């Protein structure tokens, strides 16, 4: 190769394309991604498959947690105050596993030192934030889909009711998938803050992913729709009574938080040492 001293600045699109190329290549070539997809499918299937089983000591069957398959995908109505596990344990759980996956994904960038390769070349800090957010949002959206497939398969095997308003179900599913973007940006941001502490970044992602802060706030404020402005609030809002407005709210909240967290993460990376 001939060596010329010519310097052409790659455009933002070209830079982002390169970075996305790296992240998606890595995502599809890492077993972790497929393991998390499988976990997302197994969990609802396991819950549906084991509920109502007989207690071997008493011989009495426990009351089933769900009477309808779609209840494990989304709650019947938006309930921010959680009173029983069936209201809590639905597709929103994907955002907890997703947080762990994002932490491992980004943590490896720092642990391996690969981040040095990225930032030595033309990559800007915002390219990194955007690319990680988009790749992880895609991974979490895929986890939502495998979660649904797992729930449907288990529902078919256990013979639970599939009765639902299809429009509302689609809006709820779409809303939750759209929320992946906001959640991915939060986890990317948390992992940038705790980039030197792998364990802390996983713990923080898990903590925020559970939505415990919003559940706590709801216990004080009541079941207020104001909570929809938060990621967990909007994720709960995407329920089986959803409509197009729900999808719009989810999109707005998800994009708004993604912008905030991406800019926040970019600022931190620009002002602080990379590692």
């Amino acid at each position: 190769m001939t060596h010329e001293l010519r310097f052409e600045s790659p455009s933002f699109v070209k830079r982002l394309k390169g970075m996305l190329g790296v992240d998606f290549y890595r995502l599809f070539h890492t077993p972790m991604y497929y393991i998390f997809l499988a976990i997302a499918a197994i969990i609802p299937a396991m819950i549906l498959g084991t509920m109502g089983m007989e207690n071997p000591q008493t011989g009495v069957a426990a009351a089933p947690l769900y009477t309808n398959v779609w209840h494990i995908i989304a709650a019947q109505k938006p309930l921010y105050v959680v009173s029983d596990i069936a209201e809590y344990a639905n597709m929103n759980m994907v955002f907890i596993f997703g947080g762990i996956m994002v932490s491992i994904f980004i943590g490896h960038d720092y642990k391996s030192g690969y981040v040095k390769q990225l930032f030595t070349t033309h990559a800007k800090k915002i390219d990194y934030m955007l690319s990680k957010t988009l790749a992880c949002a895609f991974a979490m959206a895929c986890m939502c889909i495998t979660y649904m497939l797992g729930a449907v398969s288990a529902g078919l095997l256990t013979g639970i009711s599939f009765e639902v308003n299809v429009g509302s179900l689609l809006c709820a599913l779409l809303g939750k998938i759209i929320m992946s973007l906001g959640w991915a940006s939060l986890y990317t941001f948390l992992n940038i803050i705790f980039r030197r502490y792998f364990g802390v970044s996983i713990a923080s992602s898990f903590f925020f992913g559970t939505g415990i802060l919003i559940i706590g706030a709801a216990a004080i404020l009541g079941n207020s729709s104001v909570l929809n402005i938060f990621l967990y609030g909007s994720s709960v809002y995407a329920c089986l009574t959803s409509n197009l407005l729900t999808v719009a709210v989810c999109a707005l909240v998800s994009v708004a938080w993604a912008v905030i967290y991406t800019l926040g993460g970019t600022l931190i990376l620009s002002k602080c040492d990379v590692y």
Partner: protein
Amino acid sequence: MNAIEIRNLSKSFRGMYAVDHLNMTVPVGAIYGFIGENGSGKSTTEKLICGHLVPEGGEIRLFGRDYTDPGVRVRVGALIENAGCFPGSSVYQNLRMQALNLNLANPDEEIRRVLKIVRMEEHAQLKFRKCSLGMKQRIGIAMALLGDPALLILDEPINGLDTDGMRIMREILVDITSNYGCTVLISSHLLGELEKIATHYGIIRQGRMIMEMSAAELEGRARVFVSLKTKDMAAAKAVLKAKFGDVREEEGYLRVYDVEEPETIVEHLLQNGHAVSEIRRNKIGLEEYYIELMSRKEDA
């Protein structure tokens, strides 16, 4: 135009300057040996140039442009501390990711090219974690070489390598500069190895550049000395010291500094009844020059 031009660069950690108003000039096409003791600020300087650390003050220009300009950054390759590869991925996969990041038009062709340069064609499918230290260093250089870099920054690339590994690495570096025209900034503790390839040197101490020179200038500045052996070294040393001044006993030899003609020494020793069994004219190397320079600085 210089490949690297640094003015008043500063960086501190917990109130202590790691790089203290550093100035540095690396000409285009040079192999610049960056020398300094542990903690002198070599790695910090390199990380600042690579954009891994945020400087507190000063200016870094690469090929006349601001060092953050993506146009110039895209042509910088680095091996800082480690290769920066994913241990669970193969050599090829790691290179492929970097090729994607750089948006290379023919990634496979380019990967083959750099693997050939670092003599790793046979090991493309090997998992990075299974590579030896020498192989990992070479993969790090291959990563840095992707995308036709104009500037390579290598932090201690030969440390920990065995003799053969060092020879291979030296040949690779010479190949890169002579055939691909890269400017190379290389830091190392192994001054003997550095001396074999460097065209320019920069000596850093406590975060400050204390000297920059070309290899030709080092040659001019390096003191000449005559080393010799006699039967009675102590007596001969006293005799020589009286006439020539700077005489030291090192590694079993007497060294008489700043004397160009060995004949005058032999004649003087014979006149004083000392036969010379071995004699050789020398010039101090980079390592000795560095040690002498450091001890002068400490004295000052």
